[in-house]
């Protein structure tokens, strides 16, 4: 039909942003060749039967530019990111493997800062690094430093989280302000004047999720960390996969004043900005108030809010605006681009 539809025969940056193109790559290529029952679940961590309980395994690579940013660095991020994938899968994380890919010429002092930061994060989270690998490539073959981490954890018997447990009436909670990490990194990378006022929320979530699971048990239906693509993309994925509608209330969604102002100025939507210490949890309605109190009682959940609910439907995410209007949220499509005027 189209004379000149642009054929994408090469990898674009947008294939890695966690949005629509990433999904096309995952489903259209990786799953096509490598798919199996476990991988096909497309959850944050794979749950593998081992003896009585289940083992959770996940892997992630970190390529952030700049490697040091307000609130964290690539080392802390690499530990937290993998811990959080385990944590929101209902697992208690135990072990980590770490692979470093380092560009020739990278400062040894900076590498030590990264490793020391990883060690501190591991200690706080109660997790050990048990295997590692180092590769160095020639100058210009990668950007400074990339880190891959693989995490192993244990899902306690009886823990059952997943899309199949969502029911109309369930409430949706987040543990704090949206978009801090995405805006902090954007500001640090571009050298914006307000860069020192936005701090990444990078943090290990296993304590707060473990606490919630221990107290509420089956009252917790599902947890998701809100990384690339932000709250909006995660909500849309949940709605589509679970075959429900999600209704969010714009005025209930917490966004810090600096992130809000900066997002306004740059023309990006905080609901699509990445977080590294935030998760969404779906809670049985009768347990929601208790869940909110538990979250707020924890240092990583002081700004927790109930932001919406699950309704029967067919995969839409509705955002009720302050004025009473409705808009729809979808997956992030392409990395957010700064606008012209």
């Amino acid at each position: 039909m189209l004379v000149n539809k642009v054929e994408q025969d090469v990898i674009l940056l947008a294939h890695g942003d966690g949005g629509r193109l990433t999904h096309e790559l995952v489903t259209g290529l990786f799953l096509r060749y490598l798919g199996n029952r476990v991988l096909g679940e497309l959850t944050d961590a794979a749950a593998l039967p081992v003896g009585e309980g289940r083992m959770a395994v996940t892997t992630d690579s970190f390529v952030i530019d700049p490697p040091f940013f307000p609130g964290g660095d690539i080392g802390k991020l690499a530990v937290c990111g993998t811990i959080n994938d385990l944590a929101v899968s209902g697992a208690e994380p135990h072990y980590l493997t770490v692979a470093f890919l380092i560009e020739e010429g990278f400062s040894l002092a900076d590498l030590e800062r990264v490793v020391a930061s990883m060690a501190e994060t591991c200690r706080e989270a109660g997790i050990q690094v048990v295997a590692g690998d180092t590769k160095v490539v020639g100058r210009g073959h990668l950007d400074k430093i990339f880190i891959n981490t693989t995490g192993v954890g244990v899902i306690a018997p009886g823990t059952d989280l997943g899309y199949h447990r969502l029911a109309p009436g369930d409430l949706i909670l987040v543990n704090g302000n949206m978009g801090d990490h995405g805006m902090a990194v954007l500001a640090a990378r571009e050298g914006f004047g307000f860069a020192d006022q936005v701090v990444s929320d990078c943090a290990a979530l296993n304590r707060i999720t473990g606490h919630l699971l221990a107290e509420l048990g089956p009252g917790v239906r599902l947890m998701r960390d809100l990384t690339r693509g932000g709250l909006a993309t995660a909500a849309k994925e949940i709605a589509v996969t679970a075959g429900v509608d999600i209704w969010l209330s714009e005025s209930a969604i917490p966004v810090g004043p600096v992130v809000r102002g900066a997002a306004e100025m740059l023309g990006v939507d905080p609901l699509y900005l990445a977080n590294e210490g935030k998760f969404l949890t779906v809670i049985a309605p009768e347990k929601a108030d208790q869940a909110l109190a538990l979250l707020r009682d924890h240092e990583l959940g002081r700004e927790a809010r109930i932001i919406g609910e699950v309704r029967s439907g067919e995969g839409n995410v509705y955002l009720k605006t302050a004025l009473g209007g409705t808009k729809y949220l979808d997956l992030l499509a392409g990395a957010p681009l700064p606008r012209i005027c």
Partner: protein
Amino acid sequence: MHILDRFRDAETGRALLGRVFVLAERAREKLGRPPVFMEVCGTHTVAISRAGLRSLLDGKLELRSGPGCPVCVTDYGDIDTMVAFGRLPGVTVGTFGDMVRVPGSTTSLEEEKARGADVRVFYSPADAVQWAEANPGRQMVFLGVGFETTAPAIALSVAQAQAQGVKNYSVFSANKVVPPALHALLADPELRLDGFILPGHVSAIIGRRAYDFIADQYGLPSVISGFETLDILDALYHLLQQVLAGEARVVNGYTRVVREEGNPRAQALLKQFFDPTDVSWRGFGVIPDSGLQWKPEYRAFDAAARFAPEVAEPRIPQGCRCGDLLKGKLTPRECKLFATACTPTHPVGPCMVSSEGACAAFYQYERRGAVGARE
């Protein structure tokens, strides 16, 4: 309270919305159909979508998007030229982010970048000059795409390059001005509009007075509006009042930013650096005196003159109705390609790419149906 919150206060908004509903109903009785207004500026389109206003106004009054998205109105030939710069050896293309994914006849800057072209996104043309100064071995070609709001900053970047002796910096000017496009719209016999919401930022430069022709020559009401929810509701209220009274005036509803005579300093910059020229707008064809070309004395910084890249006759995709959309003749949902062949990942036209584009705004915020990860 955050300063912006005052312009988003839900209670005030709901009260104002109620008054808009009442007037819209009376206007519908008077006209025999719901009133139709055009928001000229893409930033308004996005603000209306993001505030969820369209769903609230549905059936009561109709809002059409206009030609005020600089990326969207950029002609195919110009986009092909921009891509061609990226293919020249030794050339780095500097651009605002919106332009990167816009498809030309066969490819986009994003694709060319993946294939090896050096394409860099800048927030300000001044940063591109700095980059050029730090990289004297490369030619920096900055893509000047914007209206009266953006063109002065682009002019200043050339002044900066000239003052600092940065010889490897040049600009491809696809800059445009808004009033001639409004003339072209208003002269279209197929147009059926009851008024304009006029762009806030552009008006800050050109001033309220620059729009008097809308009322004087064409007898249509218009309101200059800011971008907050209350600004837009207030603009609708004033438009409806004029429709009901049978009046035609240019109301300045954005007095905290827009003055009667605009910003004389920015206007002087435009006059100093650019000459008006006839350029082609997507959907409109050539509009007289609507483009900004470099004055002869700045020709040394004109990328088109410096490199004169060869560009084939553009091939325009069949079925793309960005052009009609920009003239207010349809909404994105009425285009057959919308959300089927044309999506933000595989955009056919620029209105699906730009963060100011109506199709992108509708796709992101106003699209029903379960389409997502597992489609």
